[in-house]
């Protein structure tokens, strides 16, 4: 119980710090939202003084002193009201976020869980049969795959499977003329569009899980208690799973918690390459357009979910490893 209370206190303090930093950071960036909008306009050609004046009048600048803004901001967080976006004016921030979140959660979430399960299982198998062809294939293969940068894998897949072979749609999350709904046809479309982004995330993230699990498990397999279990004549599978794998999975579980918390942040590079309408791309647009309200809502959502995921992992750790409870 004391363990749990300590963790809750820590959670609350980090949450407050995160919320405050989230308020301060965007305001330290140079340039106002109007400057950003004008910079964007000027890429199409010189911006006349009248256009500048209108943009400034439309977007305005944050009002009041920093302290007053901070108070206003805390009030908004409690009410979950994040105001109107600057760059998607006059759209509400909450509407934008709730429009992007499902895509990211389903795509990145599902793939992350699959990658974790498949990767950890393969890693355990590779360690158990170390030196065999399974081990060589899994280890070398995953190292090869994860050595590629994310976006490079994405671009290769996009070009060869999307444009050259024409097997997958090349951008977006659903067909050109569809509007999101729950019909079977639309869901099929959405799955087809998720193919390439999902494949990219799977290829690049699988390796980490395999290597992580394999290396810890190889260590655990050398421990005295494993030798002792073997000497006792236990079934090899029991030794592998209940003695070695259960202990070896702890570090992987920690990173899984962190990664899962980060899922709501989307997968920036993959979403950018495939123009997938998720949170990562939304965040990218918010940052490049100095869209404070949108940026704050997204950063807050990401930090809070990472904190919650951490908290759950901490609690789970206590269950899995009795020593941490003390």
């Amino acid at each position: 119980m004391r363990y749990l209370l300590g963790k809750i206190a820590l959670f609350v303090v980090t949450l407050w710090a995160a919320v405050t930093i989230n308020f301060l950071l965007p305001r330290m960036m140079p340039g106002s939202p109007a400057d950003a909008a004008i910079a964007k306009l000027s890429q199409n050609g010189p911006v006349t003084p009248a256009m500048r004046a209108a943009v400034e009048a439309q977007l305005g600048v944050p009002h009041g002193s920093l302290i007053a803004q901070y108070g206003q901001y805390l009030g908004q967080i409690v009410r979950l009201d994040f105001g109107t976006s600057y760059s998607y004016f006059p759209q509400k921030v909450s509407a934008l976020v709730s429009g992007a979140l499902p895509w990211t959660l389903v795509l990145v979430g599902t793939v992350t869980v699959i990658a974790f399960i498949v990767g950890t299982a393969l890693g355990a198998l590779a360690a158990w049969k170390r030196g065999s062809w399974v081990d060589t294939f899994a280890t070398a293969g995953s190292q090869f795959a994860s050595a590629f940068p994310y976006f490079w894998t994405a671009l290769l897949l996009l070009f060869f499977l999307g444009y050259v072979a024409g097997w997958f749609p090349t951008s977006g999350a659903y067909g050109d003329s569809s509007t999101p709904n729950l019909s079977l046809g639309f869901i099929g479309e959405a799955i087809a569009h998720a193919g390439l982004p999902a494949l990219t995330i799977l290829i690049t993230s699988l390796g980490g899980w395999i290597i992580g699990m394999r290396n810890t498990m190889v260590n655990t397999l050398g421990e005295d208690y494993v030798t002792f279990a073997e000497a006792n004549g236990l079934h090899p599978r029991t030794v592998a799973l209940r003695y070695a794998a259960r202990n070896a999975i702890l570090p992987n579980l920690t990173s899984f918690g962190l990664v899962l918390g980060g899922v709501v942040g989307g997968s920036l590079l993959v979403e950018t390459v495939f123009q997938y309408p998720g949170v990562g791309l939304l965040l990218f647009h918010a940052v490049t357009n100095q869209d404070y309200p949108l940026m704050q809502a997204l950063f807050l959502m990401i930090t809070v979910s990472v904190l919650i995921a951490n908290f759950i992992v901490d609690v789970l750790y206590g269950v899995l490893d009795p020593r941490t409870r003390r």
Partner: protein
Amino acid sequence: MGTKTKARLFKAGVAVVTAAATIAVVSGCTVQTKASTSSESGSSASLLLGADNGTPTFTRNFNPFSPSTRVGTHYMYEPLQVVNSIDGKATPFLATGDTFRDPKTVDYTIRSGVKWSDGKPFTPADVLFTFDLIKKNPSLDTLGEWQHIDSISSSGNTVTFHLKGADVPAATVIDQQIIVPKHIWSSVKNPLTWTNDNPVVTGPYVLGKFAPNEYTLSKNKNYWQADKVAAKTLVLPASNTQVDIVHKGYDWAYSYISDVKGTFVAADKQHNTYWFPPGGTIALYPNLTKAPFNNLDFRRGLSYALDRDKIADDAEQGYVKAAGQTGLLLPNQNSWLNTSIPDKGAIAQDTKKALASFEKAGYTQKGGKLVDASGKQLSLTITSPNGYTDWLRGLQALQTQLKAIGIDVTLNQPQPAAYTQALNAGNFDLALGSYGGTGSTFQDFNNLLNSSFATPIGTATSANFERFKDAKTDQLLTQLKSATTTDAQKQIVDQLQQTVYDQLPAIGLFYGGLWGLFSTKDFTNWPSASNPYAPPSTWTETALLILTSIKAAS
């Protein structure tokens, strides 16, 4: 975790992988059929237009006053006249023409027989209402109409604008005002945040089907010059990447594209063409409030040290030409050129002259370095927005050229927003920026030279970033405002060109291009260098000129 659970997990994993593979194969089939149907639909009736980029999807906003309005809005509403930004010529749309009674008063004759897309007639009352609307809501006045207009009156089909002073160039600004229907907009509570989901318009197109990844515009059956509109449907997808543009068979797209001949043109040699006319001058702004940039000899030294052709080639892959030093955009404004300025204002690299000018400014070459009186090497910092890779390539060429005569050059590349802030507030030594390209010689020179924009350092301005101040130039600009004949205007513009050429308030480097990509497969008569009736821009009302000029290919 028991042995059995683990085994099940292994099996589940295998099942998931197999399922994913199956989905991939199945979806592969569906997508291929889709691709083949979409290429069939490329009949002459519909025009695939790469103009509006979703972020990454479209939000429904067809409010012509909103900064985030969909690009298609510009193909639905019409202004009084469309001004071709290439040569400044006005084509009548909702007005049939304008005449100046005197330099302070201009009459617009409003076109009769025009109908809104809901069937109601368009009248001068709509024009009066629109100007009144943007007066009451200054944030809607994106063209700054009421900086010029004092009052408006009307009688019959004539709307008369009484200007604040002698201001002939104001007609260009009034021309371009989008007109909205009074019977719809008079009941809109907040015209800035209203998203105008189903626009009622006078233009060639009305909204067709809207989806987050693509929307279509259909030909307006009530359009007053319907016989001139060749494309029945415009299709605007949200994703227009360079790969899409090469592979998907666009009829018209606006995009900078690497190696256009080897990519876009090669995809369909018979039909794909491009036209990249200059859209503005990319120039080096010296901060005229600071030494040594306020020294004319120093600026001359810089100007002579540069090989502009090389900078232009490096920046835009040879798509655009080096800029002349007259302040005009060439060849667009050839007819305004001051013929007494040699070589159309082009300044060739001349190291000897450069070093002589630098010497006058107090810098001499010593051991391969250009040093001041105290022996310190001349070191320059140039500010340019981060991510504008073409500008950066040009700057790198410039950096090499200045290094060759012993000047140390540092590039400062803040994020675009921070760059804009620095430029507006005058917090720079040298900055890369663009000017001109409005089609109106008055506006171009006024924005570059008018001292009323030259606010003190630290106070943001919106033009004349170099902060040029010259009483004689201001007087010339005032005279230009009241000159009604082209000859009188030309005389003044000649002198303004001489000022830019002699004083070097901004050192022109190269022309920024407008990147028009066209296919003649289904539609012909696109604008081109030999027929520059409109710029290839997709996001302004000049697109109306294109959409009413193209013909279906036979």
